[in-house]
C-alpha cells in the first residue's frame, strides 16, 4: 500500500498569556491508503490540534505551525497556497467534527449545506447535486431522505446530525476523512451505529480515515493502527493488536487498566493513573509523564525519551522495558 499522508516532526505552538504552549511538539506518523488510524489521548494532549493542522485550520494567532512537514499525496500541505488548500479541504480531505450542532449552519437546510460542498468542488448542476445529496443521505441511513433533505439542523437528533456530517464529508469522495471525536456527544447505541457507518463506507469507498478519540474502547473495533498521545507528543504507536495486547508505555498501560471492562470479571478496585493531566505551559524537563508514572527512574526526570522500536512497527517513548516487568 502506498503512503497517503506523512506527518514529519510537526510542531504547533500557541502563544498564550501563560506562556508558550507546545500543543503539538514534534509528532511524526504515516497513513497508508485505505487504512484506519486511531489517535488516542486525553483532552489537551494535542490530538485535535495535530489533526486540524493537516487542513491548516489552526487559528493564527495565537497558534502557529512552527515546523514540520505534512506530505499529502507527495505534496507538502504546509507549503501550498491558500487557493490550493481550499481545494484540498472538503475535496481530498474531509473532516467530521465532534459537535454536530455547532458545525452545521442552523439557518440553512441540510440539503443546501451538502449541495453547497458538492457544487463547489464537483462542477455539478443543481439538480445533479440534489440527486447526489439524496443518494448520500440514504447511504448514511437517513430514512425518508426526500422529505428530510429540506429540514433544518434543529429538526434532527444528535445522531442524525452526525450522520449528516458524515454524508457531507463523503460528498466529494475524499481520499481521507478525519473524524475528531465523532461519537463523544452521542449515546452508546448511536455511537455504535455511527462507527459502523464510517467503517462500512470507508471500506467500500477505499477511503482512509483518522479517528481521534479519548476512549480506547471506541476505536479497538475499527482501526488498523494506533497512535497514543500525551502532552503534545506521541508516546506509543503500533498496530491496534500490538498496542492493546502488549502496551509498552506506562501511560497506555495505565489507560487500559483504569477502565472497567464488560468482558472481564468485575474487579473490586480500579487502578487509576495517579495525579493530574499535565499543564502544557509548564512541562517538566524530562518525560512529561514522569510525575504520574509507576515505572519511573531517575533518568526520566532529566532526559526526554525518544520513540524507539519495541518490535517491528511498534514504538514507545519510554526508557523502561515494560515487557520485562511481566506486563
Amino acid at each position, binding site marked *: 500500500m502506498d503512503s497517503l499522508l506523512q506527518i514529519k516532526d510537526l510542531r504547533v505552538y500557541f502563544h498564550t498569556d501563560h506562556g508558550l504552549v507546545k500543543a503539538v511538539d514534534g509528532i511524526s506518523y504515516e497513513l497508508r491508503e485505505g487504512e484506519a488510524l486511531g489517535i488516542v489521548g*486525553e*483532552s489537551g494532549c494535542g490530538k485535535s490540534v495535530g489533526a486540524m493542522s493537516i487542513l491548516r485550520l489552526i487559528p493564527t494567532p495565537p497558534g502557529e505551525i512552527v515546523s514540520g512537514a505534512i506530505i499529502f499525496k507527495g505534496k507538502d500541505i504546509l507549503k501550498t497556497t491558500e487557493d490550493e488548500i481550499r481545494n484540498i479541504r472538503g475535496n481530498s480531505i474531509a473532516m467530521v467534527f465532534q459537535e454536530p450542532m455547532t458545525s452545521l449552519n442552523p439557518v440553512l437546510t441540510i440539503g443546501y449545506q451538502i449541495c453547497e460542498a458538492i457544487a463547489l468542488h464537483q462542477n455539478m448542476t443543481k439538480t445533479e447535486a440534489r440527486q447526489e445529496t439524496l443518494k448520500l443521505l440514504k447511504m448514511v441511513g437517513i*430514512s425518508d431522505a426526500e422529505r428530510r433533505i429540506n429540514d433544518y439542523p434543529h429538526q434532527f*437528533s*444528535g*445522531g*442524525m446530525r452526525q450522520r449528516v456530517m458524515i454524508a457531507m464529508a463523503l460528498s466529494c469522495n475524499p481520499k481521507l476523512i478525519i473524524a475528531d471525536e465523532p461519537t463523544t456527544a452521542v*449515546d*452508546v*447505541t*448511536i*455511537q*455504535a*451505529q455511527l462507527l*459502523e457507518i464510517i467503517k462500512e463506507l470507508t471500506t467500500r469507498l477505499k477511503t482512509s480515515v483518522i479517528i481521534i478519540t*479519548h*476512549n*480506547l*474502547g*471506541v476505536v*479497538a*473495533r475499527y482501526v488498523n493502527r494506533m497512535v497514543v498521545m500525551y502532552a503534545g507528543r506521541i508516546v506509543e504507536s503500533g498496530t*491496534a*493488536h500490538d498496542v*492493546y*495486547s502488549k502496551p509498552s508505555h506506562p501511560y497506555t498501560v*495505565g*489507560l*487500559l487498566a*483504569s*477502565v*472497567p*471492562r*464488560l*468482558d472481564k470479571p*468485575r*474487579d473490586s*478496585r*480500579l*487502578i*487509576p*493513573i*495517579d495525579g*493530574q*493531566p499535565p499543564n502544557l505551559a509548564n512541562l517538566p524537563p524530562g518525560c512529561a509523564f514522569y510525575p*504520574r508514572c509507576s515505572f519511573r527512574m531517575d533518568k526520566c526526570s532529566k532526559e526526554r525519551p525518544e520513540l524507539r522500536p519495541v518490535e517491528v512497527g511498534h514504538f514507545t517513548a519510554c526508557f523502561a522495558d515494560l515487557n520485562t516487568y511481566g506486563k
Partner: protein
Amino acid sequence: MENNVLIDVKNVSMYFPIFKGLIRKHKIADIKAVDRVDLSIDRGETLGLVGESGSGKTTLGRCITQLLTPTSGEIFFEGVDICKMKKEDLRLRRQGMQIIFQDPFDSLNPRMSAFKIVTEPLIVHTTTRGQGLVSRAVELFRLVGLDPGMMNRYPHEFSGGQRQRLGIARALAINPKFIVCDEPISALDVSIQAQIINLLEDLQSKFDLTYLFIAHDLSVVRHISHRVAVMYLGRIVEVANRDDLYKFARHPYTVALLSAVPIPDPEVEATRERIILKGDPPSPINMPPGCNFHKRCSLCTDICRKEAPRLREIGHKHLVSCHLA
C-alpha cells in the same frame, strides 16, 4: 424485620407541559420525562440508573431530591412522603440527601472560594460558624483527597478532577445518608475517572452512604452498582441485581445496550456480535402506542404495538417490562 428501604419511589410521573401561542398561551402536550416509575433503594446500596440521553434518568434523580416536584406519585425517604411536605420540614429532611452534578465546571460558583463552596451547606443547615467551619473544611478536603492549603483558591484554579472532588466534599459536608451522583465522571478525562470512582466507593464504605448512580457508561455502572435499573423514554424497562442484569439481561433494549458497549481489545471485538439498534429514540412528546421501544425492537410482535407491557418480576428481584421476556 427492620425495614431496610431508604428511598421508595411509587408511581412517580414528571410531565413538562409544552405551550403554544404568544397571546393566547395554551397547553398542547406534555413531555413525559418520567412516566409512572416505581423504584426502591435499600440502605447502603448503590443503585445504578442507566439510559440514553432523554430517557429521564436525571429528571428522576431530581424528583427524588425534590429539586423538581413530580406531577404525581409518592416518594418516601425514610418512610415519609417528601412530596407532600411543608417547605420547612422538607428543608430539614433534605439534610439527609445531596447531589453531585455532572459538570464540575457549571456546578461550582466561580465567584466563591473553595472554602465557601464546601462550607455553604453547613451555614445553611447547621449552627457551625467560625473556627468550626475551618476545621470541618480541612477535614472534608482531606477526605476527598484535596490539599487543605488550596482552600482559598477559586474553582478555575482547579483541574476537572479536583473540581469534582470539591463537588463531592460539598455534598458530604452535612453528613447525608443518600447521594444522587448524576453522571459524576462523564465530563472527566479517562485517566481521572477511576480516581473518582474509587473515591466514591471509599466514602460509601466509610460513611455507609446510599447512592443513586446515574450514568450512561454500562461498564462503569457494573463496577460500582449493587443493583441496576435501565430506563427508556421515561419508564423503567428492567431492574435487577448487578450480576443478573449483566449476565441474564431479558429486555431487548438492555441486550442491545450491552452489546453496544465498546471493549478495548481488537481481538475480542473481532469476534463479538453486535446488535445495532435502528433509528433514534422516538420523541417523548408523541410516544407510540404500546411498548415505547417497539419501533426499534427486533423482536416486536402484534401485542407490543397495541399494549404497553407492565414491569413484572421474572426472577429473584429481577423485574422486566416486556411482553416477550
